[in-house]
Structure formats: structure tokens, C-alpha cells
């Protein structure tokens, strides 16, 4: 059984008591514990169930590579699944539940899957769920949904806060072990700015646990001494609890800082995502120990040798009383020695190598530990925890020589450099036969925008495992990085480090070497996704030769741990099955993030009121206070209508329209784009931008214009005013302001860079109000200050002046068909001006109206709307707007395109008005049916609705639409489909439904 030892545990404060909860059980740990060490201290060996077979799973590792111990953590708004127990620091009140079990962790019905394991082999999903087809939707998918998924999805909005930080350093060192600290010291000595980040709460990495001496100091003293020196330097930033999540082009690094995961009650962000630009990146990310592949290697109690050692040294926790050590390298002997020193029993070290270990082997024997060379585990005995091992010769097929009772197994299959971050931007690896590992090729490092290497691995991450070699490599790599930045490399000397004479690791990819089918089906490669040696072999047999294909076919390495333990063993197994060398198989692609990061950290502060910028006009406060029912228009929120009392939207719209047509309405038109274009070549420029002529517009006058893309399609429209000899003001649609500004700049900057034209987006300088209705003039005259009479300010003219003391520019234009003025005042005075209009208009029962009333009134007048009558495929000719296309101009954007055969085809659908015979409102987007069906058996169509409304003015539905030969078919009745499947008859009519002669606006 696992337990807390009486002594030991360099990271825990034994005087403290921390209460936590696992699957409803109250348990206790100490400050400094991880959730994993605390669970083990409470003899909680079983921590979850596997994904496919629901097999019992225990803790395997002590760090970020842990595949099994994933927890549903917290409750309600603090709930988060897939929290890794080994990287979760214990805090008071922590509450977790194990995942993927039903109905309970101890008695799981899904474990029955294991009995059918032979049917759930590699590619099972591909093979099984293809036939018969209807089964997928009704049987397979519901079943899989029920049984799949490791954690639960949160049901409440995240209560925590997150933020980003942009930081810049000459060098970023990822990893705070001795390699990272030594690299940091070397860089810092050159004067370059450096950030050293460590993903755990503690510096020093493995070296502190593994012991040894550096420059006459213990590794722990060396680490503390290094930290002290670094902390004293201005050009150094040290950060713990920050993981290098990803390395991207141009020296971009994501640092994932877990600010308060360990102390969730503190104020401040939970996570902070550092978005860092680095001149050079040093990945001192260490190495990850590989499991060994033997039958039963997934039974709780089988653990990485280094993890067993970590739990004893760091947290004073023994995984078992009797631990069998099995290895193919010398490092695992350190575990046996550490256990023995802690007073625990190590019945045997099984060393798969015929020649065994170097000096560490001698030490172990001197301590009285039995060491068996050339031996292996035939299988582990036990169910929910280890009860013993059967021993065999590594060279054989598994004939059991002896059984040994034990409650833990410490395994080591060698070490793989953690090359993930080095590889994110394309760093290449070589297979090292001697060291039995993929290690970085320094000649093929990731390259930056100048073709130079910008990511450098150092220490164990570069394949150096011995203490002295790690330090020497860290210094050499740091010097290279510093030089690459143009700094002078400091003359850092390599400190002397103690060495044990270690014998070489030997490749052991299957234990025993000749294990038969039965053993291989119980030999796990990927613990989280339940992929066994037999699955990879089957995939190879079925022709999956590429490692990327095998990965997807077997799901090897596709779980949330991304195969940190399983990848190398898996591809070695694949290489063996394909009878080829490991380098020929290669690795799968390493992609960010290194381990999963929170969604909150990615979103940062962007939530609630700052989820997205919402643009507000100067009058927004009034809208808010007066029942505005908003709709999004780009990033603006515009009032669709203003609801009074219990009014419905439709009732409010009707009231607003009738009152405007009868007396007086106001529209907040501030969102309309206002682009000022100035310079001697402006006339020429606008003649290119618009389909009609703008250069000959007289000063003081306005003209409606259309804008097309170079492909001939309508992109915007609006009224243009000539301000002075070389200045024009172009109104755009609300959504077009930024887009058309960019469009103009693009043409000016890329094509007509020598034309003397400047454009300024003045949209937000002005609050603009449309004063509309038969009493519009009266209310302006009441405000007073300028002559807005019929003769002084004619239709389609503008004038500057003052109105009620406000300096104003008044455009006499109309989008409603009524007498109408659009008045621009400085934005800061917009609200006061609006209030003044409301006050002056009170006697006319003035009513502000929203965008829907605007839309209906323009439709009653047959005016088009960009985005309704146009959809990116419509040209002005489709809308019968030939009158707005200049024939005099030599060129304009879209002219050539509009001459293409398809554009001049008489078969293009054209704009008409539509009137239902029964007076109903046509459904939006409805199609007009035509006789017959097309090649796909679909009903043929001959037109579609582009705008459709109930017209309060006319008391019935009105619509516009594009219809085949429409203008030639006036009076004809065609049928449109309705949502309920029935048809509605509509007559083709002129699109102007109201005041066709324009008498209303011309008063």
C-alpha cells in the first residue's frame, strides 16, 4: 500500500494539514503536496478508469507527462475536467472526482469492455461502425457518446478571470532545472535580457532529487545559489508556475502562468497568458522517462522509476512497501537506492541488460539489494493494485522463473528528451542508437525569418543526461544564443560535477523480447487511450506503415497527454512490426500546447462587457433609457425600434412609421460612414470609385452614388456631397465605413500612389440625425439659426450654419420619401442636439424611429439596401440602375467586368416590386417556383425575395425581389414558397409603392 513515510519530503510542510475531497471522501495532505502525492499518501492507488476498456488506472508519473490521474475538479462555476493530479498543487478545500467510471470508481460496469478486448482492437471504430448505415445514428453514436469522453463538460459560466501580457526578451529559457538555470546565468552575464520560466512551483528539476555535486556544492545548493545570483540581476526575470506552452514563428512563445491555481481564493487572475517575443529561445525542458512494455504494466502500482523516487524524496510518500525495480538503464538504480535509504524494501532489481549496471549497481548490491541481470517481468499480477510480478529471462518468450510478491513496480525504459517545444517550429531530430533516443539535430534547428536558428535545446532536452554534460551543454548552447543576438558571449566556465560510471542503456521495446500474443494483448503502450502492443502490430499488419496513419488508426498518442509516455515506445513497436529501423518510421508531429492550457487563458480578458467592442453613438444613452430594442449592425448596436409600455416590436415599428409619415420622426444616423476625400486629383479618383460621375458635382450639392468592386458587383452606396473645390464628403453604409475607407486607401496606395488624394474617416467626428416628416422644416425653423426653406436649401443640397446654437452641417436628402434633413453636429454635442430636437419637436409629437422603420420606409419608396438587394452577386444593372452608371466616363471600377457576357445576359434576374394577392407578407428569402425540375431533381426557380415587410402606410405586405425577365412581366402572377411548404401568389409590380412622383419630399 502507498503511504506517507515518517520522515522525508523536501517539499512538504509536515506541520500543516490540508483537507481535500476525492470522490466524496475527506482526505488530508500537507502544504507542498501535489494532488497526486496527497492521494498516494492516503493509499489511493486507484485514481481513474481507462478510456476504452475502463481498466483500473493508477498514477504513473510525477509531472506533466502523467496519462492517468485526470480529475473532474471543483464544482459549478469553478468546475474543470481533465485536471492532472501530478501538476495540481494541493490547497485547502480542493475537491475532485475521478473520471470515466460508471457507476463508481471501484465497481465499473464498463470494465466489461475488457472482456471483449479482442473485438475492440485497433481500427475497431473504422471497421465496426461503417455498416449498416442507419445503425450509426441510432445505436452506435448514442452508445459511444455515453461511454466516451474522459471528463465532463462544465455546465456553468467560468467564475474565474484571466488576462494576457505582452512581453519581450532577448532570450527566453524554458525550464528551471539545472540546465535552464545555468543557461540563464550564462545569458544574463552577457547583458542580454532573459526570462527563465519553470512550469512547477519549484526550481531545480530532477537534479535535486537525483543528487550529486556541482562545483563542490550539492545540487540543491547549486540551484539556490544560481537563483540568488539571477534574482540580483536587473536583466533577469524568473517565473515559476509558468509553462512554455508553444513556440511559434518569429520568436513568439506562449507562457502559461498559473497565477492562483494553488491558492484559488486570492484576488487576481487565475491564469495569465504571456505572449512573448524572444530573440532566441532555449528549451531546457529536460527529458521524460519511458515506461517498459510488459504484460500488466498498466496495473495501479506500476510507476515510472523516476516518479517513485520523486514521491519518496520530494513528498515523503512511499508508493509501496516492497517495490520491484525493472530497467534497461542505470538511472533506475537510483530509485532502488532511494527506497532502500528511506527504509523500504526492494526485493529485486530486474535489469534487462545481460551485463547490468555500472557503479550504481555496485552500490545497490552493497546495500543488500538483489540484482538480476538479463531478467524481465513476464507479467504483473494484480487487479486494482499490484500484488506481485512473475520473472522471466528478457531473451526468452516469458517462461516464468520465479514469482515475487510486491505492491509496487518501478519501471524505466530509458529517457527521451522533451523535444516538444524545440519541434513546434520544425526543429529536426536524429535517432541516437547509443543513447536510444531521438535527440535534436543542432544543424537543423527551427529557423526564423532570416533563415537562422532561433530555438536551441539545452541539457537533457538536448539528449545530455549526465550532470557534467548537462551543465557543459547548457553553457555552450547559451553562448550560441547570445552570439546569435550579437552579444559577446561571457567566459562562463563549466563547473565540475560528480559522475557515476554508468553503463549504456539498451533498447528494450518488448519485455520479454519474445512475448507471445497473450502477453502482448496485456501490454500497454498508451495508458490513457488503451492502445496495446498488439494494436500497433495489427495496424502494421493491416498496412498502416506511416506513423501518422498508425497513430490515427490506433489512437496512439491522441489522448490529452499527447503520447508523452507512449510515442517512442509505439513507434519503436511499429518499426519492429514493419521490420525496419526506428529512424525510418520517424515521429509524429509535435504541436502546441505542450500540455493542455485553459480556454480561459486563451480568451484572456475577453468576456462579458469586453468580450467584443460594442460601438456606441453619442446618443446611445438616450436609446438605452427609452426602450431601444437593439440589433447588431457591424459592431454597433442600433435601435431596431423603441418599445413603449407593452408594445410588441411590430406595434412599435408601425407607430414610428405612421408618426414619421404623418408628422415628425428622428433617426440616429451617426453610424453612417463619412469619408472626407481631398486633393487636386479627388474628382478623378471618385470617378473611378463610383459608377456615376462625381467630378462634375457642383459645390454645395449632393449626389447619390453606387460603388462596385473591380468584378462589377455592388459593394456600397450613399450620398456624396461636394464641400469645396477639392474636397468631397462620401457617405457610406454603416457597415461600409471602415471597409470602403480601406478600399479607397488600397487603390490609392497600391495602384494610384501618384494621385494627390487624401482620405480621412470622419465617421465618428459627427453625430448625425435624420429629421424626417412633413414637420421637419418647422422644427428646424423653431431651433433657428439658418435658412432651411425650400428655395434656400433645395433637395439634394447641403449647407453649413447653426441650428439652435449648434454648429451644424445640414444635408437635404431623403431615404424615406418624406421631407427630410440629415444634420451633422460635433459628436460631443450629439446628445444635447438630439435632446434639443426632442424638445422642439414635442409639439409635433416627434418620435425617434429605429432601423426597421428606416427599412420599411425605404422599401415603400423602392430604394435598395446594400446587403438586402445585393449579396455580392448583384450588379447595378440587375437593379435597373443604369441611370447611375455613367456612359461618359472612360473607366470606373467594375466597368470592364460589367461588360462580360454573363453580366449582360438578358437572363439575369432583375429587380421588381412584389405584391401578394392576399395582402400577406412574403417570407424573407422566399423563392419563386418555375415549372419543372433541374438535373438534381430540385424544383426550378425563377426569382427570389430580397426585401419584404408589412407596410403600415399601405396596410399590406410589400416586397422587392429579383425575377427572371422581371421588368418585362409587370402584372404577371408568380408563386413563392412559404415556410410551411405551401405557396403564395404574388403579382409583379413596380418597386415604388409610395409617392412614385416624389411629391412628399419635394416641398
Amino acid at each position, binding site marked *: 500500500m502507498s503511504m506517507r513515510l515518517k520522515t522525508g519530503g523536501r517539499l512538504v510542510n509536515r506541520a500543516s494539514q490540508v483537507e481535500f475531497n476525492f470522490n466524496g471522501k475527506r482526505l488530508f495532505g500537507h502544504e507542498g503536496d501535489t494532488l497526486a502525492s496527497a492521494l498516494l499518501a492516503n493509499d489511493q492507488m486507484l485514481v481513474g478508469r481507462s478510456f476504452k476498456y475502463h481498466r483500473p488506472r493508477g498514477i504513473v508519473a510525477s509531472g506533466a507527462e502523467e496519462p492517468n490521474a485526470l480529475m473532474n475538479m471543483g464544482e459549478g462555476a469553478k468546475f474543470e475536467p481533465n485536471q492532472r493530479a501530478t501538476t495540481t498543487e494541493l490547497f485547502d478545500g480542493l475537491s475532485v472526482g475521478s473520471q470515466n467510471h460508471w457507476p463508481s470508481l471501484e465497481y465499473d460496469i464498463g470494465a466489461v469492455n475488457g472482456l471483449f478486448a479482442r473485438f475492440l482492437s485497433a481500427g475497431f471504430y473504422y471497421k465496426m461502425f461503417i455498416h449498416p448505415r442507419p445503425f450509426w445514428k441510432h445505436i452506435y453514436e448514442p452508445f459511444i457518446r455515453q461511454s466516451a469522453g474522459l471528463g465532463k463538460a462544465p455546465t456553468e459560466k467560468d467564475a474565474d*478571470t484571466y*488576462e*494576457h*501580457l*505582452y*512581453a*519581450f526578451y532577448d532570450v527566453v529559457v524554458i525550464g528551471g532545472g539545472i540546465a535552464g538555470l545555468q543557461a540563464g546565468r550564462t545569458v544574463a552575464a552577457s547583458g542580454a*535580457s532573459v*526570462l527563465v520560466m519553470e512550469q512547477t512551483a519549484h526550481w531545480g528539476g530532477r537534479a535535486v532529487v537525483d543528487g550529486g555535486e556541482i562545483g563542490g556544492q550539492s545540487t540543491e545548493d547549486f540551484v539556490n545559489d544560481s537563483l540568488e545570483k539571477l534574482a540580483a540581476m536587473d536583466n533577469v*526575470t*524568473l*517565473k515559476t508556475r509558468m509553462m512554455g506552452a508553444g513556440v511559434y514563428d518569429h520568436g513568439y512563445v506562449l507562457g502559461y502562468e498559473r497565477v492562483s491555481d494553488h491558492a484559488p481564493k*486570492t*484576488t*487576481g*487572475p487565475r491564469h*495569465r497568458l504571456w*505572449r512573448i*517575443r524572444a530573440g532566441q529561445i532555449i528549451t531546457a525542458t529536460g527529458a521524460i522517462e519511458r515506461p517498459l512494455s510488459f504484460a500488466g504494466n498498466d496495473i495501479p502500482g506500476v510507476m515510472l522509476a523516476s516518479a517513485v523516487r520523486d514521491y519518496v524524496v520530494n513528498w515523503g510518500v512511499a508508493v509501496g512497501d516492497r517495490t520491484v525495480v525493472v530497467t534497461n538503464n542505470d538511472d533506475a538504480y537510483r530509485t532502488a537506492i532511494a527506497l532502500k535509504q528511506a527504509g523500504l524494501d526492494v526485493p529485486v532489481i530486474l535489469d534487462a541488460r545481460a551485463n547490468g549496471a555500472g557503479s550504481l549497481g555496485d552500490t545497490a548490491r552493497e546495500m543488500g539489494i538483489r540484482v538480476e541481470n538479463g531478467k524481465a517481468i513476464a507479467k504483473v499480477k494484480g487487479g486494482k493494485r499490484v500484488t506481485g510480478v512473475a520473472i522471466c529471462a528478457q531473451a526468452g518468450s516469458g517462461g516464468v522463473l520465479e514469482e515475487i510478491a510486491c505492491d509496487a513496480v518501478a519501471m524505466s525504459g530509458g529517457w527521451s528528451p522533451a523535444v516538444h517545444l524545440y519541434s513546434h517550429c520544425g526543429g529536426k531530430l536524429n535517432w541516437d542508437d547509443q543513447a536510444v533516443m531521438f535527440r535534436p539535430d543542432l544543424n537543423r534547428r527551427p529557423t526564423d525569418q532570416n533563415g537562422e536558428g532561433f530555438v536551441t535545446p539545452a541539457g537533457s532536452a538536448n539528449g545530455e543526461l549526465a550532470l557534467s554534460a548537462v551543465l557543459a551543454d547548457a553553457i555552450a548552447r547559451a553562448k550560441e544564443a547570445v552570439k546569435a543576438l550579437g552579444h559577446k558571449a561571457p567566459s562562463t566556465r563549466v563547473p565540475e560535477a560528480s559522475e557515476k560510471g554508468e553503463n549504456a542503456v539498451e533498447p528494450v521495446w518488448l519485455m520479454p523480447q519474445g512475448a507471445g500474443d497473450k502477453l502482448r494483448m496485456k501490454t500497454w503502450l498508451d495508458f490513457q487511450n488503451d492502445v496495446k502492443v498488439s494494436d500497433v502490430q495489427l495496424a502494421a499488419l493491416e498496412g498502416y506503415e506511416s506513423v501518422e496513419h498508425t497513430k490515427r488508426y490506433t489512437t496512439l498518442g491522441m489522448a490529452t497527454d499527447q503520447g508523452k509516455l507512449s510515442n517512442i515506445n509505439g513507434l519503436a513497436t511499429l518499426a519492429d512490426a514493419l521490420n525496419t529501423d526506428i529512424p525510418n518510421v520517424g515521429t509524429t508531429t509535435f504541436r502546441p500546447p505542450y500540455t493542455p492550457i485553459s480556454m480561459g487563458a486563451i480568451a484572456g*480578458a*475577453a468576456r462579458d*462587457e*469586453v468580450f*467584443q*467592442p*460594442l*460601438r*456606441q453613438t*453619442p446618443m446611445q444613452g438616450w436609446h438605452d433609457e427609452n426602450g431601444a430594442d437593439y440589433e447588431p449592425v457591424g*459592431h*454597433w448596436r442600433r435601435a431596431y425600434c423603441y418599445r413603449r409600455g407593452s408594445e410588441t416590436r411590430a406595434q412599435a415599428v408601425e407607430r414610428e412609421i405612421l408618426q414619421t409619415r404623418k408628422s415628425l420622426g428622428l433617426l440616429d444616423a451617426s453610424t453612417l460612414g463619412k469619408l*472626407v476625400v*481631398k*486633393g*487636386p486629383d479627388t474628382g478623378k479618383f471618385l470617378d473611378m470609385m463610383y459608377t456615376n460621375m462625381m467630378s462634375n458635382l457642383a459645390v454645395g450639392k449632393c449626389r447619390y452614388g453606387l460603388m462596385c468592386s473591380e468584378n462589377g458587383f455592388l459593394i456600397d452606396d450613399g450620398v456624396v456631397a461636394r*464641400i469645396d473645390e477639392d*474636397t468631397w464628403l462620401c457617405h457610406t453604409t454603416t457597415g461600409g465605413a471602415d471597409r470602403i475607407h480601406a478600399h479607397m486607401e488600397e487603390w490609392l496606395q497600391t495602384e494610384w500612389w501618384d494621385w*494627390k488624394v*487624401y482620405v*480621412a474617416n*470622419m*465617421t*465618428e*467626428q*459627427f453625430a448625425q440625425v435624420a429629421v424626417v416628416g412633413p414637420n421637419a422644416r418647422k422644427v428646424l425653423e423653431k431651433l433657428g439659426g439658418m435658412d432651411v426653406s425650400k428655395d434656400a436649401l433645395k433637395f439634394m443640397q447641403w449647407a*453649413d*450654419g*447653426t441650428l439652435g*446654437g*449648434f*454648429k451644424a*452641417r445640414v444635408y437635404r436628402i431623403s431615404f424615406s420619401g418624406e421631407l427630410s434633413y440629415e444634420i451633422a453636429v*460635433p*459628436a*460631443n*454635442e*450629439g*446628445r*444635447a*442636439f438630439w435632446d434639443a430636437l426632442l424638445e422642439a419637436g414635442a409639439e409635433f409629437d416627434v418620435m425617434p424611429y429605429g432601423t426597421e422603420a428606416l427599412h420599411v420606409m425605404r422599401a415603400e419608396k423602392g430604394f435598395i439596401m446594400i446587403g438586402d438587394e445585393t449579396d455580392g452577386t448583384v450588379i447595378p444593372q440587375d437593379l435597373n440602375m443604369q441611370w447611375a452608371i455613367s456612359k461618359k466616363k472612360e473607366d470606373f471600377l467594375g466597368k470592364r467586368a460589367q461588360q462580360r457576357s454573363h453580366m449582360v445576359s438578358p437572363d439575369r434576374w432583375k429587380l421588381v416590386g412584389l405584391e401578394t394577392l392576399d395582402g400577406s407578407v412574403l417570407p424573407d428569402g422566399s423563392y419563386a417556383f418555375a415549372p419543372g425540375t433541374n438535373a438534381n431533381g430540385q424544383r426550378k426557380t425563377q426569382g427570389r425575395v430580397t426585401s419584404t415587410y408589412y407596410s403600415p402606410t399601405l396596410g399590406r405586405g410589400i416586397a422587392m425581389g429579383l425575377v427572371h425577365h422581371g421588368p418585362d412581366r409587370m402584372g404577371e402572377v408568380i408563386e413563392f414558397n412559404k415556410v410551411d411548404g405551401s405557396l403564395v401568389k404574388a403579382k409583379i409590380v413596380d418597386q415604388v409603392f409610395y409617392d412614385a412622383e416624389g411629391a412628399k419630399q419635394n416641398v
Partner: protein
Amino acid sequence: MMQKGLSKMSNIQTAMNGARATGYVDVSEAPVTGMITLRGDLADAGVQKAVKSVMGAGVPATLTVTDADAGQILWMSPDELMIVCAYDQADQMVSDLIAALGDTHSMVMNVSDARAVFDLNGSATSEIIAKLAPIDMKSMPAGTVRRTRFAQIPAAFWMTSNDSARIICFRSVGEYMFNQLRNSAQAGFEVGDW
């Protein structure tokens, strides 16, 4: 372009009505501020002369701010300046600049109302900016200006001292800017050493 003449101050309302927030850095909306956009080739002698004659200070070097008699001149691009001045002097200054520029191809616009202006005050001012803008705040020299983005919106800013900065964004997104700054500056959200 607009008729000259002072507006009634009681009619004037800035984007955030002078909102303030206290955190580990103080955030406040600045009072109304005069802002003028000048477009023109900054390398052109005519433009340089006109700016000098009206402002009493020359065209600033790339990315810098120069103090002038009546305000500051901010470099915005090789063909754009922003002039910051008293709100009620902006119209007059626009007229003066237009007159001084004469036939030189240029554009001068009063954009005082098109922007919202915020001030940050406190020793960690640059840290707040670093949370929102992709700018190296550690090596941002005093007297320089940046056009950048703050979270999702475009903005410009400059350090008004070691412990204070002024930020300009579009008026319509003033509330978004204010909320972002306020949230970033909340007590307890300090980054610590970095």
C-alpha cells in the same frame, strides 16, 4: 469647414463623461481635448515649414512626440501627424494650418470629437499597457508614440511621464477601452516582477 464659434460647454459630453477608476494604476477619461489630423508628406519642405510656423515646433522624427507652444505634435506615419491642443483652439488651428500649407497637397481635419482620450497614472502604467497592447513596454523610450491596438481596438498612446500615459481611441469604443483598462488595473492583478 464648420462655422467657427464656441459651443456651449454644457452641450459637450465626452464618450465616457469623465469616468474614473482606481486600481493599482488609476484610469480616467481626459477632459475634452483638441485633436487635429494633418495628412501631408512630412519630408516635404512646405509641410515642415507650415507646421513650424503655426505650431512653433517642427515635424517630429519617426515615432516621436514633440512639445509645441500650443500642445504636442505626434508622428503617426510618414504622411500623417496628430496635433494635440486645447479643445476650443482646434478649429482656429485647423484654419491656420490650412492657410499656412497653401497649395501644398495636404489635408487638415479637426478630429477632436472622433476620439476618446484616457489617462493612466501610477508607477505600473506601462504594465497595464503591456496587458493590452503588443508593445515592448520595457524599451519604449519616453517621448515616443505608438499606433497599435489595445485588445480588439485600434489606439495610439504615448508616455506623458515615466508613470503616466495618454491613450487615444475612437469615440464609439470609449467604453470598451475604459473597461479594459479598468479591469487590467484592478488591485490584485499586479504581474509582479517581469
